[in-house]
């Protein structure tokens, strides 16, 4: 079973929940899809890592074959090609690697070259397989890295925990589509509530079973609880915030291993999910 951990807003505790769930479940796979800022590896400190480079394809133009017909430049929907000195020039940052220019060129002047955009790191923390997508700095989109990272999910009955990026855009969509169910980690503030509702819409659209965890649950935030009630969204845990927890997290500790009072939260979450989602 694959569980996507989502939040909408950043900093609500996705990585905290995801890493602790992966450690609590036996033989799980943890996949960090927040490729812009991957932090699960700081907590899980994977050993024996292998690294796979991830590439996208960029077009290259053979100046001898190109007859300057401009068809490729006109076809490109992303304005990634410019016509300079009678030859096409590619802007790598906006190219979507759709292959359109190669298909439309009658002179067969277009070939491809590979451009590295990041890596997928894979290692182990005890019996947890730790997969991390890491986007190179300056790159625009990490979706190809996310796709590759998601391929490393457990093939067997073991649990895969997917740590998603914040927001609700295309990269979040990619991770939710691959999951069997979702856990929303919500911060009980006006900000947390607003962004949660945005990503909740996305989860509903994709018709995934969904559960809520309220993190930093010191004071009740009633609008959130009413919303969950109305939408029959089950709140499966409320994790309180305190300075001790903050210090453990600041120092990238796996909280369930150093503090038994937190382990019981994650045991309980897993129990509910396994009972509710029949896979």
């Amino acid at each position, binding site marked *: 079973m694959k569980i996507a951990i989502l939040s909408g807003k950043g900093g*609500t505790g996705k990585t905290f929940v995801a890493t602790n769930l992966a450690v609590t479940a036996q033989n799980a796979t943890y996949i960090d899809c927040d490729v812009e*800022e991957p*932090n699960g590896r*700081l907590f899980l400190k994977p050993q024996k890592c292998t690294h796979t480079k991830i590439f996208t394809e960029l077009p290259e133009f053979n100046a001898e074959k190109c007859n300057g017909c401009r068809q490729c430049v006109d076809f490109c929907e992303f304005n990634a090609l410019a016509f300079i000195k009678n030859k096409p020039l590619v802007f790598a940052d906006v190219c979507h690697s759709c292959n359109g220019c190669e298909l439309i060129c009658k002179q067969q002047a277009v070939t491809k070259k590979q451009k590295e955009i990041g890596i997928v790191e894979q290692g182990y923390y005890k019996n947890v397989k730790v997969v991390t997508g890491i986007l190179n*700095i300056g790159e625009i989109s990490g979706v190809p890295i996310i796709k590759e990272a998601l391929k490393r999910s457990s093939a067997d009955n073991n649990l895969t925990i997917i740590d998603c*990026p914040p927001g609700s*855009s295309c990269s979040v969509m990619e991770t939710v589509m691959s999951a069997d169910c979702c856990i929303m980690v919500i911060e009980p503030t006006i*900000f947390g509530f607003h962004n949660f509702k945005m990503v909740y819409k996305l989860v509903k659209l994709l018709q995934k079973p969904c559960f809520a965890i309220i993190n930093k649950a010191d004071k009740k935030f009633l609008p959130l609880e009413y919303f969950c009630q109305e939408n029959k969204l089950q709140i499966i845990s409320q994790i309180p915030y305190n300075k001790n927890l903050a210090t453990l997290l600041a120092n990238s500790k796996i909280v369930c291993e150093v503090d038994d009072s937190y382990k019981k939260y994650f045991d309980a979450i897993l129990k509910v999910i396994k009972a509710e989602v029949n896979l």
Partner: protein
Amino acid sequence: MKKLLILSGKGGTGKTTTAATFIKFAQAKAFADCDVDAPNLHLITNLQSSPTISDYYGSKKAFINQEKCIGCKTCLKTCKFEAISYTKEKCLINEYICEGCSVCTLVCPTQAISMQKDIAGHLSLFKDTSVFSSAELKMGRGNSGMLVTEVKTAMFHNAPTTELAIVDGSPGIGCPVIASISGMDLILIVTEPTSSGLSDLKRIVKTASNLNVPIAVCINKYDISLDIADKISIYCQNESIPLVGKIPFDKHAVYAINNNINLADLDCPAQKALYNTFLKVIQLITKIY
């Protein structure tokens, strides 16, 4: 006009709270929310007027005329984004995956596919005593960078003579962040003293440095871990980045957000530290040029 952008790398370190507080301190007449994926600044700016809403068109989307489709799967095999599926002997586009490259229209032997405009979000512009530009991307849509650029452009056009503009950015280092950085005079990075915060700080600093925009850093909730706060100070020193503030963890911050109060109006330790940070940022941004 001087343009200040607030970023963080890691999410949830306090970008929006800092932005809202600075807007109040500066009595800023122009501000924008570039976190189009998860906008929040509008929740605490308390603008009375209603905004002008306009549609944002992103990439076009392909549509297959099911009557013309002969189910040959040529489009499916050519699509680099795996956006096309095959059911009941017909091909079908998944609008959430389609990036709008239109390659499928090129290869379809029966001309069954057309490209159609797609509303990928909307822009909001508030204009009364001050100008506030923001936007919301429709869920699952890409091209957020283009929308970010439109948000900024709308602010500049409607408040061209303003002295200081304050822009709230998004987390991460990708598309929307890179789009938000261009044309800014100073980036204030709000970080937190956690190992995640420090790791993300380094990534956003590199991203911003490559684009040649000056940076300053402030540490929010610095007393959560004094050790890591020290590490951040040392990192900033080594990189010659001005450290312009250390804001204590203060429960008033959450109280202010949830009670619709601007932290600038609440007499508390975080407010005082933010005010000092604000003064240093103003000093820095006026020194540039």
